[in-house]
């Protein structure tokens, strides 16, 4: 049985008058001890999906099953267990910590309430948690207010707080996008180490493909566009061999820190203007798709298998070209240059 399963999820915000719901027929399965990345641009619904998984939003249609049971119909005791088993790491390390509480108070609240530590043992437990996330395990740190900690320290504290309840699933929503570049990989490595230690499952929401590739290596990716999962599969498959036009265009648009690759890319024709509104009938991507035909506007495409556990919602996945080999060649040349 999977850890968490989402079936035909649909959601529309109560005050929303948009033509399309923010989530539209999403299916997702999360196994124990796995990594699932949800990628897309702003407005695609990935954050909302993360919040539904975390039990913060009750979806307007569809089901959320945890250990096989419907989360929104659970008896109180099981709901409490679910609440503890699913934790969240937010994007903004400053707003996720109560500015009026000292670090120790923020960290101990959950431990004490769920009786994971008593008043006498909580301080030792907190120091253990601090060192497990790479912070100095000293009492002085626990006395500080959030504004006295650096961005990296705050994010580590938040991770410690999430891990303190020994969860089985952690939803990480853009956990490193507000951190300095030189710190990002360290925090990602920390999250990965936590997974090895506690056999966690992650739902990792991000718009940064590079970060997703690093974090979800060996895991799965779901690519979302305006509430629809347009492509899903193993991380390497989806990123190296995208079979949905949208994933392909995203892949081609990502800037790369190599000026030679950038110049080569400039010599090829520029990406399509992608400003059209999402279609309200048929395939959601039809208005922007360079490969679309009439059928694409009439009916919603079904999910088709294009590879081993690799699915896309597209009538014509064969029209998607290979990702530009110029980039691959240049990349190979870069690693060769670096080797000498």
């Amino acid at each position: 049985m999977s850890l968490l399963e989402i079936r035909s999820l649909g959601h529309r915000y109560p005050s929303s008058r948009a033509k399309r719901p923010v989530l539209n027929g999403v299916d997702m399965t999360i196994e124990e001890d796995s990594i699932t990345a949800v990628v897309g641009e702003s407005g695609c619904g990935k954050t909302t999906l993360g919040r539904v998984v975390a039990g913060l939003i009750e979806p307007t249609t569809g089901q959320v099953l945890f250990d096989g049971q419907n989360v929104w119909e659970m008896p109180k005791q099981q709901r409490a267990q679910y609440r503890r088993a699913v934790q969240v790491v937010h994007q903004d390390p400053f707003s996720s910590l109560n500015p009026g509480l000292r670090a120790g108070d923020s960290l101990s609240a959950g431990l004490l309430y769920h009786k994971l530590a008593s008043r006498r043992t909580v301080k030792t437990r907190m120091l253990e948690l601090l060192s497990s996330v790479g912070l100095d395990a000293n009492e002085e740190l626990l006395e500080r207010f959030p504004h006295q900690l650096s961005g990296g320290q705050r994010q580590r504290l938040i991770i410690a707080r999430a891990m303190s309840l020994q969860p089985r699933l952690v939803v990480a929503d853009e956990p490193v996008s507000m951190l300095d570049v030189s710190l990002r990989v360290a925090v990602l490595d920390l999250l990965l180490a936590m997974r090895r230690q506690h056999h966690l499952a992650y739902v990792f929401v991000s718009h940064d493909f590079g970060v997703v590739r690093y974090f979800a290596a060996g895991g799965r990716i779901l690519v979302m566009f305006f509430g629809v999962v347009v492509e899903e599969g193993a991380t390497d498959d989806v990123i190296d061999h995208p079979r949905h036009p949208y994933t392909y265009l995203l892949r081609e648009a990502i800037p790369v820190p190599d000026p030679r690759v950038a110049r080569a890319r400039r010599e090829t024709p520029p990406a399509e203007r992608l400003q059209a509104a999402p279609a309200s009938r048929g395939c959601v991507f039809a208005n922007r798709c360079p490969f679309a035909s009439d059928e694409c506007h009439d009916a919603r495409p079904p999910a088709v298998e294009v590879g081993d556990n690799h699915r896309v919602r597209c009538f014509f996945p064969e029209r998607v070209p290979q990702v530009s080999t110029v980039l691959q060649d240049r990349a190979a040349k870069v690693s060769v240059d670096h080797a000498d």
Partner: protein
Amino acid sequence: MSTATDKQSANSSAPHTAPLIEVDHLTVAFGEGTRAVRAVDDVTLTVGRGDLYALVGESGCGKSTLAYSLLNLVTPPGRITQGRVSFAGRDVTRMGRRQLESLRGAELSMVFQAAMNAFNPVLTIGRQVEHILAAHPGVFADQAEGRAYFEHLLQMVQLSPGEVWDTYESRLSGGMKQRVAIALSLLLKPSVVVLDEPTTALDVLNQRLVIDILRSLYESLGITIIFITHDLAVVAELATRVGVMYAGRLVETGTVDEVFLDRRRHPYVEALVSAIPSVLSGQGVAHAIPGQVPDLRNLPPGCRFAPRCPLARSSCSDGEPPLLADRQGHAVACFVVNEDHDQDLVVSQ
């Protein structure tokens, strides 16, 4: 050097084009006396006419403060305590208020970080443009001509005038507002535009759009662009020349190829590039830089990057390394890297 042929490409300008902006031993400090913190510490750099100059660094490195001082916009408690900034030969740091006001926007314009928040919510975009035109009467013959030019600029940033002129800012998306802000910055036909983190708050496709737009504006209008960012991928895509800052000091300058591909590079730049997880396959693993950026109130002795540097020796803590340039003008401030290099190096400051 292995990158010699790549340097011949059209847009990499050697550092010998006519200098337009010269920063000379600039120091900007916050606070008083012995407790003053130097956000920009003795920085000397030159931006040539026609450069697409990227000023790179992480939080606290001083890049935004440096950019603000180019227009003499540093406000108390910050102040310029040493050095000067020249624009086309005129000293910006010594100009009177009226001179500065006519300079800003018209000759040297700036798009601030999160420009999408800089719009007046109770006026339509069109009204705000009219106000700007009215404040600088010499640029266009009349309002109509100014409006026509603005609409031309809107088309260059891939927006249609109809969806912008009579609209309030709340109706526009973040990406659209960013592009309107770029168009506004070019309205008075400045020769230099400074952009603070133009792509940072945007997602992949909007980022690509802004990068492409800035490139095409640069090529068709012949303006000089200075942009500040922490995103090295955007730098590689957009810049012709690069300046890297760390903890208030300038640690490397050069063309984009030199800074990314030369064998002689500052260890911070090397470390920063390998700290970025890449979307391309076969790039290998990413490595975080240990430690964190030093507190400006509590700087380490000698080289500021030494505590985190994989090449550091004990002598690195003896003094701050000077910025030394090779014959092509590629300058690096590192004892170890400069010593190991056999080329003649001259002091770049």
